[in-house]
């Protein structure tokens, strides 16, 4: 057979594979938007659930997810950024540094449900936080660490060495160079990484199953030691545990969760591309 014909057929095959990858993604998103939009009105967003969750809104689940995400951010940002500063600015290439990198790769690979077990064992039972926002946020924070560390390290490494040299030549200490020169330059990249970590936390279900999530709690949480409903767990509950659930409410909940996460990832990529274009080095 003609070689260029083989090539053309081959490329067509690659295109077909890409279509098989992309079309279902579009289909999932469009279906959820079209069917979910029918359920969403003001009441759905700001009312408590009624009639065994078959009517009313999903307000407590939205608030719960926002609180959990904020809690995760508070716990994960200092540890993640600190860890990244160590790796990018202080660590030398020793076996210990390699052990840290290996640990990060492994943290990223641990199944989400195992994080749930760990959170149950350490935070809920051993430290006696109970099933609480505190326990859930801390569990999610450890899960998002590898995402934040890798992104922040990459952002710090992207700042040219000359910036540090100049800072040192002006009499600045190493920490002053990091604090006043390197960190501000790397900030957009770090923020992008933090958002990526947070959207992972907002969408996860398994780590919060045994650490914080409430099946049905038609009030807002009172403190960090309170349970809360959360969007992903709520979607799981109303699509598997409650018979006779109206499909609109399921699609509506899926859409709210999806919209939250896609808007976060849009913000992240806007920040990334905006600063990449403005960057002068």
């Amino acid at each position: 057979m003609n070689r260029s014909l083989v090539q053309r057929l081959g490329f067509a095959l690659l295109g077909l594979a890409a279509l098989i990858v992309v079309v279902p993604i579009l289909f999932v998103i469009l279906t959820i938007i079209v069917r979910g939009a029918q359920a969403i009105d003001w009441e759905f967003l700001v009312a408590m659930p009624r009639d065994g969750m078959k009517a009313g809104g999903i307000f407590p689940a939205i608030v719960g997810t926002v609180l959990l995400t904020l809690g995760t951010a508070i716990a994960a940002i200092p540890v993640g950024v600190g860890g990244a500063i160590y790796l990018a600015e202080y660590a030398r290439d020793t076996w210990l540094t390699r052990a840290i990198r290996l640990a990060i790769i492994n943290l990223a690979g641990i199944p989400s449900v195992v994080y749930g077990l760990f959170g149950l064992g350490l935070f809920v039972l051993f430290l006696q936080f109970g099933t609480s926002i505190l326990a859930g946020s801390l569990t999610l924070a450890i899960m998002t660490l590898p995402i934040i560390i890798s992104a922040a390290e990459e952002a710090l490494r992207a700042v040219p060495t000359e910036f540090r040299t100049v800072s040192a030549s002006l009499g600045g200490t190493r920490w002053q160079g990091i604090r006043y020169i390197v960190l501000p330059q790397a900030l957009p990249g770090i923020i992008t990484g933090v958002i990526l970590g947070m959207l992972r936390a907002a969408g996860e279900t398994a780590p919060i199953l045994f650490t914080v999530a409430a099946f049905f709690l038609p009030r807002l949480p009172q403190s960090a030691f309170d349970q809360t409903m959360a969007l992903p767990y709520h979607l799981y509950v109303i699509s598997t545990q409650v018979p006779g659930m109206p499909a609109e409410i399921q699609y509506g909940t899926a859409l709210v969760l999806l919209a939250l996460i896609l808007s976060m990832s849009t913000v992240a990529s806007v920040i990334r591309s905006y600063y990449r274009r403005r960057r002068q080095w």
Partner: protein
Amino acid sequence: MAKNDVSTAPQPRWIEFAIEALIRVLGFSSIGFVVLIFLFLLREGIPVFFEVLPGNLVGTRWYPTFDLFGMLPLLLGSILVTVAAIAIALPLGLATAVLVREVAPNWAREILKPMIEVLAGIPSVVLGFFGMTLVAPLIRETLGAPTGLTAFTGALILAYMSLPTIISVAEDALDAVPKSYRDAGLAMGATQWQTIWRVVVPAGRSGIVTAVMLGMGRAIGETMAVMMVTGNAARMPLSLDSLFRPVRTMTATVAAEMGEVAQGSVHYHALFGIGIILFVLTFAINLVAASTIFQKRRRGGLR
């Protein structure tokens, strides 16, 4: 004079010293967390290996209410779904990576990349919900399976969940192959198609293996979507048609049953025991994947 020096510095030395010490501690925290996770899994899970006879644990039946804790069907269930998912995702992912890196014009790349990023961001529970409501009925009708909640349904969803990982790692692997390799292939008179499959892809082999390993790690640990679409029947998937029957994975078992067990019971310890197995499995998979990454770094890569 010495006093003056200190006051012109923005921060006293000891604060800086404390900050740097703190950063060192935070740098090592990742190791601490991995150890902590493993310790707490052991603490809650080890008892099961004393409370339940070994013969029972490796048995073929998981019926906790009858004190039967055979983990084999769960392990095989996880393996079946994972292998099937990779069998679907690898050809699709590799083809997409090759298309994006080697063939596609810029505009196509600009469409494909964000779509794959979006896929990576869709929460597992949303895909599980979608799988339950739309994919399962489709499979029920086309294959005649009683519910449509089968290992295959799970594998299909999992394949899409591991695609972003496989595509991006495979892309990096292709990207690391020097341009001179391609030039050499083309100069020998090979078409671009031949150059891709006989020069570029073989040269990026180790990175593609890494992509498969990381995709597998992602698939075997996936919980919610799998629990929602595989039907959760703890039976041995041994016959040929197992792929089109309900199956139950280790992750789904933990997620579904942990809410109902009494803390400290044998069942509770058994679920943490499954957690230990999952931890060790994914640790091993990631170790293999990481070792290929480190090897490349030490050799200075292909660049």
